[in-house]
């Protein structure tokens, strides 16, 4: 598979590719991050008219919604769509495809080596444009920007898996080196045919990102140690999730939590008088709203093995519970039971959908 080198910035190069695809009619729509200059806000845009691409900032380190989740219903249309995603968003989407909540068939997925995103708090309170020069300098150097999401700082899967096109952003992409796009699939070759830029047979070299990987792994160890620092057990659980106000924001922004009717929002959790009477007769007191910790434990068992660690949940939590860090840590453990890595391969079944006759000899 080949690569394309364009003499422009990576961001501009991707925008031009989208423009070319839209104008040539190869795609019907493009999905990319956008900057609304009037309000100086960022959002994920679904664009059909190429003139709207002027505001595109495809590689901006901001995630307002997990694009994998946003793509879910759009992707099942018959329209051809090119989408620019962060590696974790693409993995989340692959997880949704496995759950028949999306389709890769009509998509051209463009992803990039990701330096991590700023928390939404930062996006609201600070000028991202002002933070960018320093951010770029740090990620090009293989270091970790301290003001990015904790799950990003500790993310080891920053190289896209399964992307049709991989754009080099961190590591080898030195300023002035141009925009390098690796065409990983035949689909990508077809779409990018006739697109400007110099062709080469350069292959993507992950070893250039070794420094970033090592730094992230070290950071991950620190994060995991920090969420269990006061010793394990029930007290710690209360300490972590005790602040929960039960808004269910974490599950509504979670790309993996896809159930149309979540058990926790179903009639099973309509609290009625008998429920209160029964509970009070045993314990004499009840925290309101009830079942907030139950909700998190339930979610952990239902989908932690598919957690891609995008960090949306922590970002929207009104009481700053480190939801994403807990899910990432627990998810790695539950996924490892089945040698599973969420989003690695669309053909790989979700652990709870399959089984082996001989496994877990210690159970039963």
């Amino acid at each position, binding site marked *: 598979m080949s690569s394309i080198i364009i003499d422009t910035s990576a961001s501009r190069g991707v925008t031009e590719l989208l423009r070319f695809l839209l104008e040539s009619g190869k795609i019907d729509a493009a999905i990319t991050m956008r900057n609304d200059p009037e309000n100086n806000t960022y959002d994920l845009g679904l664009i059909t008219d190429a003139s709207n691409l002027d505001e595109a900032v495809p590689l901006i380190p901001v995630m307002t919604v997990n694009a994998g989740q946003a793509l879910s219903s759009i992707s099942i249309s018959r329209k051809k769509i090119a989408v620019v995603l962060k590696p974790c968003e693409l993995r989340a989407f692959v997880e949704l495809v496995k759950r028949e909540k999306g389709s890769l068939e009509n998509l051209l997925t463009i992803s990039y080596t990701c330096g991590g995103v700023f928390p939404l708090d930062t996006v609201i309170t600070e000028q991202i444009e002002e933070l960018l020069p320093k951010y770029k300098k740090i990620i090009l150097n293989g270091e970790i920007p301290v003001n990015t999401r904790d799950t990003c700082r500790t993310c080891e899967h920053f190289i896209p898996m399964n992307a049709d096109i991989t754009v080099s952003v961190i590591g080898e992409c030195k300023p002035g080196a141009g925009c390098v796009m690796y065409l990983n699939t035949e689909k990508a070759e077809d779409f990018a045919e006739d697109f400007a830029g110099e062709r080469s047979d350069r292959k993507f070299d992950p070893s250039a990102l070794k420094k970033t990987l090592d730094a992230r792994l070290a950071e991950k160890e620190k994060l995991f140690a920090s969420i269990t620092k006061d010793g394990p057990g029930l007290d710690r*659980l209360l300490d972590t999730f005790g602040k929960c106000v039960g808004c269910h924001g974490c599950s509504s922004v979670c790309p993996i939590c896809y159930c149309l009717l979540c058990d926790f929002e179903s009639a099973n959790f309509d609290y009625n008088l008998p429920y209160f009477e029964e509970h009070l007769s045993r314990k004499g007191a009840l925290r309101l709203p009830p079942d907030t910790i139950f909700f998190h434990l339930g979610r952990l068992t239902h989908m932690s093995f598919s957690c891609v660690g995008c960090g949306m949940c922590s970002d929207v939590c009104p009481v700053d519970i480190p939801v994403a860090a807990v899910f990432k840590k627990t998810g790695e453990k539950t996924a490892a039971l089945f040698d599973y890595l969420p989003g690695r391969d669309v053909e790989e079944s979700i652990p709870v959908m399959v089984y082996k006759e001989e496994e877990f000899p210690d159970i039963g």
Partner: protein
Amino acid sequence: MKKEFTPRITSFLCKWCSYTGADLAGTARLQYPTSIIPIQVMCSSRVDPVFLIKAFLSGSDGVLIGGCHPGDCHYETGNYHARRRFAIVMGVFDSLGLESQRLKLSWISASEGPKFARVANEYTEEIMALGENPTRKSIFL
């Protein structure tokens, strides 16, 4: 006088094997402790992980799932799925530092009345050694 601790073990027993096994233990007049609180389910795979967690957080000292032996499921593959889900719950408990010893899965066939009585006795003893589940007293769950 201090009241002796009687554990409460919420037990989800599959209709075809373990529940029938428990019945057999009864008709054979085998002794097993009253700590076992049986709930009949159609299959061990009917036990959603949240059932285990709800029982645990509501103050059950132990939670037991009883199912058919692997390969013997009435619905052919239900217990294989139950085993995977149970492994996930155990993984979550271990990761959070919760007492995973309070959860147990056991394969007990319809003809294994003695095994049911043995598992009930042994598991009750294990739970007695662990003591009361701290969730019983905690109102913030």
